[in-house]
């Protein structure tokens, strides 16, 4: 992808990542965790992993993670592009794995009192569909159903797997 990304750091086993967001509010550490979903129903896609991320803050008791929605650092496209790159690296190292991720609640939506999720991942996927679809299969889940990913549709969660 041609989008600018942040340098990220990872654990040896590829289940933890972090990178530093730099924007209008300074530097914010972003942590990414990838863990297996043992009870996920679609056998065909197993093993299924989930990707979650948040802001890391240092407290008196050490580092803690919470929701990224508060950061509003003005660099969300670069953050999402970095998370997508992390997802691609994880799948490249775990070629039989399916990775799930969820849309991202942006600060503007919450400020407007809308509890809606702006599917920023989907914007990245949709805008790079011709490139990403060459190497990956995508599915979208909504209302307890999963379907082949269709550009322009909105989903509650997304599944991706290398072809």
């Amino acid at each position, binding site marked *: 992808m041609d989008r600018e990304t942040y340098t990220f*750091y990872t*654990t040896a086993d590829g*289940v*933890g*990542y*972090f990178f*530093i967001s730099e924007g209008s*509010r*300074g*530097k*914010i*550490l972003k*942590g*990414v*965790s990838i*863990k297996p*979903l*043992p*009870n*996920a*129903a*679609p056998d*065909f896609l197993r093993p*299924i992993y*989930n990707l*979650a*991320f*948040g*802001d*890391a*803050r*240092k407290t008196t008791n*050490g*580092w*803690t*993670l*919470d*929701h990224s929605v*508060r*950061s*509003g*650092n003005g660099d969300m496209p670069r953050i999402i592009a970095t998370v997508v790159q992390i997802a691609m690296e994880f799948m490249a190292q775990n070629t039989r794995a399916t990775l*799930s991720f*969820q849309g991202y609640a942006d600060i503007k939506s919450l400020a407007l009192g809308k509890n809606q999720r702006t599917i920023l991942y989907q914007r990245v996927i949709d805008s790079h569909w011709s490139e990403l679809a060459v190497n990956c299969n995508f*599915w979208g*889940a909504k209302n*307890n*159903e*999963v*379907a*082949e990913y269709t550009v322009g549709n909105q989903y*509650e*969660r997304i599944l991706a797997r290398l072809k």
Partner: protein
Amino acid sequence: MSATMEKQKMGSEEFNIEDILAEREKIFEAIINSPFLNKKHQEADEYFSKLEPPFPWEKESLCKDA
């Protein structure tokens, strides 16, 4: 002054990469054991455990068999 307060209010911190890398093991430990992130994983597991067949790849198989 106000800019500093705003940064504190938003939780932003000024740090450099050397400081972060020196604490990388603690940061990774916090990420992997994070109650916030683990709750997100649990929610995803519950969500996908409720998905109902037929799944798209099963529909494809049914079409081929027909």
